[in-house]
């Protein structure tokens, strides 16, 4: 009996299948004598209060970080706060209450009116920026879980040569440009959020993730042992915005509590290369040379932007590979022309829909063209950033004291301890008041 069934089953199934497909009919629901047809149960979503709690935690964290960095001048407080936020925003919320990623949501909301931007995300995006306008990058110091993780592993930081530091710093601007571009090219139903896709640390927060993600994250942490905060300094797109606004900050972390005695003890204290030494006076000849160089660079800027746009336009095709529609059209084209064997899940799924292939090609072609334009914008942005950086580096600013570079300083508070005035303030140097060390 069983053997017979085994032999017959495929046939029975085929028969049923054929009839079902033919009539577009289902095998009918039986009329039960005493059985109630059950309803499909759907579990309810998580409560919304959690989101509000996270925003409240963010606000409290920012206030605390600013207090520890600017008022209390407590490295220990900042360190503990960083650990707390690593646990809360990192491990508990799994890195997904993230102002860094919120850039993309804001851009998508501006690009696609279909996209409903939750107010929570607006707050998430704007709050650290507003804080940066007034107190600098205190968000980075004690609230950002990615920053906190790197802060904890930076145990043997070396000084990165200035030229390398400044050059790698440009990568963050490029990454920001790319993230904005892809977010703007996505749609509400199908967002392309590269910052989230290539977040290096989220795999650790979740104790799992793709091998690539963990590998890249591991590399960042290993490098982070010796080069302080590699992600924050050289990739973080939100850090770019924070840095720009932090330049205008009303108050900012100071290295000495009151006055600088120019003892140079703090010179090597910063693992992030954010301490700028006092400037020396220039000779008249140097000044003229500097001015000439600046003029040349200002002329160079539009050239760089133009060349960037031209080169960027050529990258449109490769950029568009991240778009699912373009990828699908490529695959279908390969299959149709016999250059790829078999079919993929994606092409099967597409053929199931019965959509005409030409329509897909047209959509993909259109998208690729738009990516070409977007690529040109990205290239122009890269040119602008390089030219702007060169000009920025050529403009001389007078500094009389050792000062934190406002855009690079993440207010970690490591330099406090190196300052003898701070030691005196804390009463750690006996019999010395800050007044004694006044120059």
């Amino acid at each position, binding site marked *: 009996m069983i053997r017979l069934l085994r032999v017959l089953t495929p046939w029975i199934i085929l028969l049923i299948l054929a009839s079902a497909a033919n009539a577009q009919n289902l095998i009918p*629901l039986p009329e039960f004598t005493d059985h109630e047809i059950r309803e499909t149960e759907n579990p309810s979503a998580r409560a919304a209060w959690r989101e509000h709690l996270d925003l409240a935690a963010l606000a409290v964290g920012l206030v605390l970080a600013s207090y520890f960095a600017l008022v209390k001048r407590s490295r220990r407080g900042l360190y503990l706060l960083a650990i707390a936020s690593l646990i809360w925003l990192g491990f508990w919320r799994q890195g997904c209450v993230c102002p860094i990623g919120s850039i993309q949501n804001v851009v998508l909301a501006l690009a696609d009116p279909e996209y409903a931007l939750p107010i929570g995300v607006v707050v998430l995006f704007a709050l650290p920026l507003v804080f940066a306008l007034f107190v600098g990058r205190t968000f980075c110091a004690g609230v950002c879980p990615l920053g906190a993780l790197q802060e904890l592993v930076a145990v043997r930081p070396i000084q990165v040569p200035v030229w390398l530091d400044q050059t790698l710093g440009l990568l963050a601007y490029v990454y920001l440009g790319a993230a904005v571009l892809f977010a703007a090219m996505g749609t509400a139903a199908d967002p392309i959020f590269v910052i989230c896709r290539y977040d290096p640390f989220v795999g650790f927060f979740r104790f799992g993730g793709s091998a690539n993600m963990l590998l890249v994250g591991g590399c960042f942490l290993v490098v982070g042992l010796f080069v302080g905060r590699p992600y924050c300094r050289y990739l973080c797109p939100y850090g770019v915005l924070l840095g720009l606004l932090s330049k205008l900050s009303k108050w900012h972390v100071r290295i000495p509590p009151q006055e600088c005695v120019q003892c140079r003890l703090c010179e090597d204290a910063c693992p992030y290369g954010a301490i700028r030494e006092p400037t020396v006076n220039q000779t008249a000849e140097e000044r003229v040379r500097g001015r000439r160089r600046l003029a040349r660079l200002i002329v160079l800027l539009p050239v760089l932007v133009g060349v960037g746009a031209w080169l960027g336009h050529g990258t449109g095709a490769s950029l568009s590979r991240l778009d699912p529609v373009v990828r699908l059209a490529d695959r279908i084209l390969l299959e149709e022309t016999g250059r790829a064997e078999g079919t993929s899940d994606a092409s099967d799924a597409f053929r199931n829909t019965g959509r005409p292939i030409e329509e897909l090609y047209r959509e993909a072609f259109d998208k690729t063209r738009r990516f070409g334009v977007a690529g040109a914008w990205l290239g122009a942005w890269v040119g602008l950033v390089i030219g702007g950086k060169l000009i920025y580096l050529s403009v001389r600013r007078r500094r009389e004291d050792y000062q934190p570079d406002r855009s690079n300083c993440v207010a970690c508070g490591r330099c406090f301890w190196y300052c003898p005035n701070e030691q005196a303030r804390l009463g750690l140097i006996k019999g010395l008041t800050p007044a004694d060390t006044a120059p």
Partner: protein
Amino acid sequence: MADQHAQKIDRRRFVGNGVRLAGAVGLGGAAGLLAAQRGGPERDVWQIDPDVCIACTNCETHCVLDESAVKAVQCFLMCGYCDVCTGYFPTADFELNTAAENHLCPTGALKRRFIEARAGVRYFEYTIEESECIGCGKCVKGCALMNGSLYLQVRHDRCVNCNECAIAVACPSQAFRRVPASEPNLLKKTARDLMAKRAQDA
């Protein structure tokens, strides 16, 4: 000279303050505008369109959670209560009983319960035990051979609502999309039609 110096600082401070104020107002304004424009806090969440889903098994492996937020769901209205269920049994080499070797489901999450027999035909109810389901979609693919009453859904008690869903990136048929949080579940068109018809009859 000292006067000049003081003036210069003042000017710089003035410019700084102005820019800061403009920046704060601009940021706040932009934030407010964005918030107002979008008409309230209507959140959206990830969901699978079951009519587009091909049950490729990516849901099981690509979710950032160790145990995927995607689970198989039974739409009882669409089910045929078949004895030989292609979602429950493999299509070859099986016996019609619940012994482990006969399960298509790798974790035995699909439960088979006898309901009644009429005119020699036995009817069974199939339910998903969600705590055991890993979202591989094998039953969904099997069921698609018949009525297709089993389908995959993102379960919102588990989903962490990532900004960019890792499964959506890996989804070959682009079945993942954002849906309003007030209507977080999707049905097949057939199921919607059946429900409409049922409501009409009642």
